């Protein structure tokens, strides 16, 4: 390199103001606040001095979308205009008769499922998990990957949530642990309970955990302890709080967890908790009621995820009570069900729950026996045979539903297949 270039690089290495940072903490907080405001509003052109340009682009886009009825986003077109036909393609008629074009899909669904199994002895019940990916395949949809355990997308990568079995003094503790996922190796021994349904050992179970929900970065974990008198607890945790450990925290409030207060702020959490008058876990009946929402859960209700507070008035067990709070996008993104429940029931009368893609091109309907995925286009749910059907085990429930869109679908197909143990 030219010595003068070296000199220039050295002289300009620091910013214009050297160590004094133009990008101050104040500015960073200001930007974060704007982002918070924006995330709570529907998106619209915001920058005043670019408003005219943005508005013109939006208008042009709206005209094009209206006149041609196709997506402007990169990736597969919603409809293949080159293959227009007045006859419905075989197997894909819409509710109201003929379909003009063959639908294509822009989303992939990563499902996490839990099956509760009876144990060899009372108090030794256990849970097994599996993850599967439903993605576009051969012009339709298919199950492109499946494996044991829970594989969830989180920040930098995919993370695995597994049940670890720890033995001490002739007793077993089964806890959940999360770590960055690695491809299964033929030479490496499988982690306990990872590769196949965990075969419970014939040892007394001191404590156990099971996963009720896995989302963007939060999990709901139910705990059961059998030491002394049995107790049950439930917590919402961040993924990175689920570390490998041999025993649960005592007293229970020491358990790493996320309170409603930390998520929503006191101004929201306290008014939501106050009417419920719930008792804190491990606290005597005379103790102050839980105002901060220390113990709560994210549960599945028909068509959406909901927050419920845990009341320990019973002492040894909790009772979940509905909270008048809407879960933010940071906890559950894309929780809107695109199809109406009436349409879902018309297609599948035995439907118990449903998930729809953010791209509104598919709906996965859950019944007691299976999960059936139907095309969904133009606001209509196809009434033909489903494109994919996943048989469910007895008492198997959905604990995770994550979506990949457009360009990320292929990446997920490739990476998830490599990370899940193939059956």
């Amino acid at each position, binding site marked *: 390199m030219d010595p003068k270039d070296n000199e220039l690089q050295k*002289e300009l290495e620091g910013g*214009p103001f050297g160590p004094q940072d133009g990008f101050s903490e104040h*500015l960073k907080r200001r*930007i*974060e606040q704007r982002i918070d405001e924006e995330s709570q509003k529907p998106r619209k052109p915001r920058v005043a001095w670019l408003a005219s340009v943005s508005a013109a682009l939006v208008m042009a886009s709206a005209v094009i979308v209206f006149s041609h009825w196709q997506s402007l986003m990169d990736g597969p077109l919603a409809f293949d205009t080159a293959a227009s036909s007045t006859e419905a393609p075989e197997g894909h008629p819409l509710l109201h008769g003929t379909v003009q074009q063959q639908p294509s899909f822009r989303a992939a669904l*990563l499902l996490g499922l839990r099956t509760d199994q009876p144990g060899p002895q009372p108090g030794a019940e256990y849970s097994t998990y599996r993850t599967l990916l439903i993605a576009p395949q051969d012009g339709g949809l298919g199950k492109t990957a499946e494996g044991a355990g829970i594989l969830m*997308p989180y*920040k930098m990568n995919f993370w695995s949530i597994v049940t670890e079995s720890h033995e001490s003094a002739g007793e077993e503790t089964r806890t959940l642990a999360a770590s960055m996922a690695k491809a299964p190796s033929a030479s490496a021994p499988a982690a306990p309970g990872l590769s196949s349904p965990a075969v419970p050992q014939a040892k007394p179970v001191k404590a156990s955990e099971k996963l009720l929900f896995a989302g963007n970065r939060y999990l709901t974990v139910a705990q059961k302890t059998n030491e002394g008198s049995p107790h049950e607890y439930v917590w919402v945790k961040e993924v990175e709080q689920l570390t490998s450990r041999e025993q649960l925290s005592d007293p229970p409030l020491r358990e790493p967890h996320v309170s409603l207060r930390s998520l929503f702020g006191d101004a929201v959490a306290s008014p939501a908790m106050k009417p419920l008058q719930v008792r804190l876990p491990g606290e005597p009946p005379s103790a102050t009621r839980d105002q901060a929402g220390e113990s709560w859960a994210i549960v599945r209700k028909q068509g959406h995820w909901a927050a419920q507070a845990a009341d320990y008035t019973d002492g040894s067990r909790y009772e979940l009570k509905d909270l008048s709070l809407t879960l933010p996008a*940071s906890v559950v*993104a894309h929780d809107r069900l695109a199809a109406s429940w009436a349409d879902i029931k018309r297609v599948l009368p035995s439907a118990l729950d449903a998930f729809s893609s953010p791209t509104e091109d598919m709906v996965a309907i859950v019944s007691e026996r299976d999960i059936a995925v139907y095309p969904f286009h133009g606001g209509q749910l196809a009434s033909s045979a489903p494109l994919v059907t996943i048989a469910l085990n007895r008492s198997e429930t959905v604990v995770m539903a994550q979506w990949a869109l457009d360009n990320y679908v292929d990446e997920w197909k490739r990476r998830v297949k490599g990370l899940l143990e193939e059956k």
Partner: protein
Amino acid sequence: MESEANFEYLKYLSSSSDSKAIVAELMTAYGKDVWNYAYSITHKRDQADDITQEVFLKVFRNLYSFRCESSVKTWLLAITRNMSLDYRRSAFLRKVVPIGFSPFESAGASAAASASAEEEALGKMALSDTWRLVLQLPVKYREVLVLFAHYQLSMKEMAEVLGVSEGTVKSRLFHARNKISKLKEKKTLGSEGQ
């Protein structure tokens, strides 16, 4: 670069990814770079603040549009450049010529005087000598020199940020080096650069 490795995951975002947390991490890693680049183009602190805010807002809105054809840094700097130039154009159209623009673009203004006035207005903030000279250059030479010497981007990366061919980058860099050398010479000889 470690920051680049840490943001490899942007390629694998899902619609349910925590956009706010990701943008917060991007600000931690690249906030200073974005601000410095915005400042080097506009030469005004408050404009650099506004532009930095708009850049990260745009990133928040369009996180999934990152196509991973370039590095995260060049992607952010390209957005910053476009935002800064739009900001300048809109200011120009409003017949407002902010202090600090190159003398080649603000007729009659002395760049050195502008720089000094800027410094005084900012109080304790002190530009290094070399930065003062760089900020006197016309924008198209200023930014290529900043991308080369401060951000140490490759020719290919500079071309991506600037939206020009590598040949154009090389030509501008050649002229930028010459101009800065002349400014340094004049300074050494005792006269303020014009």
